[in-house]
């Protein structure tokens, strides 16, 4: 351990992490997204614990590289990345600021809480599906919208269309 090196405070590290954008939706940061679960020092090594959004999300590895790069830019050369699967990521962890930024970017933010949705059918398979949420068009604010596809341009989104302004848009799925 080099005594000349001053380890930045964890608050400072969190502030730096808040500047790392999500590679696929760059208007929100990785802390907005709620995927950074813990920051700690293990001796003099910084350890950043991240949870993936979806198992196969190709951005996961890019995000890890971006975090290490950002830390290196602030003088922390050996940041270690850890992955934590449980508890599983949920859109309930999106900050209110993140939802506002998504909306302004043209992506409808998740409606309702995933935790409430899952209370319905976790014990057994049920054909009863929760009522489809009312998704507001991020362009014209109409509630007259319809789902075109359960999957959109990335695993975290589905594809909608506004029946008022006729524009298609992405909906960040409640997950």
């Amino acid at each position, binding site marked *: 351990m080099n005594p000349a090196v001053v380890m930045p405070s964890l608050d400072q590290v969190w502030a730096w992490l808040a500047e790392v954008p999500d590679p696929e939706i760059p208007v929100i940061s990785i802390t907005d997204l709620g995927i950074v679960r813990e920051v700690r020092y293990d001796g003099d090594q910084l350890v950043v614990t991240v949870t*993936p959004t*979806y*198992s*196969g*999300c*190709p951005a996961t590895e890019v995000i890890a590289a971006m975090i290490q790069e950002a830390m290196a830019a602030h003088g922390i050369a050996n940041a270690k990345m850890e992955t934590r*699967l*449980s*508890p*599983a990521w949920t859109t309930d962890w999106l900050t209110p600021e993140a939802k506002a930024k998504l909306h302004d970017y043209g992506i409808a933010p998740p409606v309702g809480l*995933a935790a409430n949705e*899952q209370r319905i*059918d*976790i014990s*057994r*398979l*049920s*054909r009863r*599906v929760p009522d489809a949420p009312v998704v507001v068009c991020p362009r014209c604010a109409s509630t007259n919208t319809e789902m*075109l*596809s*359960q*999957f*959109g*341009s990335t*695993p975290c989104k589905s*594809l909608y269309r506004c029946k008022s302004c006729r524009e298609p848009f992405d909906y960040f*799925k409640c*997950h």
Partner: protein
Amino acid sequence: MSSARYEYLLRLGDNALILSQRLGEWCGKGPALEEDMALTNNALDLLGQARLWLSLAAEEAGDGADEDTLAYLRDDREFRNVLLVEQPNGSYADTLARQFLFDAWSSLVLRRLLASSDPAIAAIAEKAVKEVSYHLRRSSDLVVRLGDGTALSHAMLQGAIDKVWPYHHELFIGDAIDAEMVASGIGFDPEHLKDEWLAYVREVLNEATLKVPAAGGWMPKGGKQGLHSEHLSKLLAEMQTLQRSHPGASW
């Protein structure tokens, strides 16, 4: 090396990997852009799950294997997926029928594994069950739409369900590995999933105005023990060709 836990993890990982590869074959060929994207997103979720299971299997083996060597350097007889997932894509109805039967079963499997005494397995199940529940909602909705659709879509989907139906039996047949997993609290008895699976499948098929095939009949099995159809060999030939031809290639 070949512990029961290793075999069990291979089964979980190979089911996800092989079905992911099958769905990936639709990329650029889906019947509509939205369907193309849905199938490949579905494949992506499964591929992510396969990586988690196979990484854990490699860790269990502890012989220098990793998720990539397990995916790319094993021969067909070393794969432990059920026969259902290696069945060819066929028509869109065939792909949907296979997916629907799998999603319903996989949802039940993952729900059981949430209670596994093995924390690493329970954590992967917790992650995957959310994704598979979403897949199941989609495949169930599509079965209803196409089953209760036009005369042609109804006939095609009924034909597809009838064709893939024999492969569901294997999902519920336990063996010595399953028994060992039950005894250690890691796994569950596959037979115990059958009633709930059948009740759900029946409910959706009824809603779709489709007939549940008669009980009994041909019961192909053996995938879990490494006895596969030639379909798997051809799938692997394509999936593994790069790593087999250029060992260690990366980009």
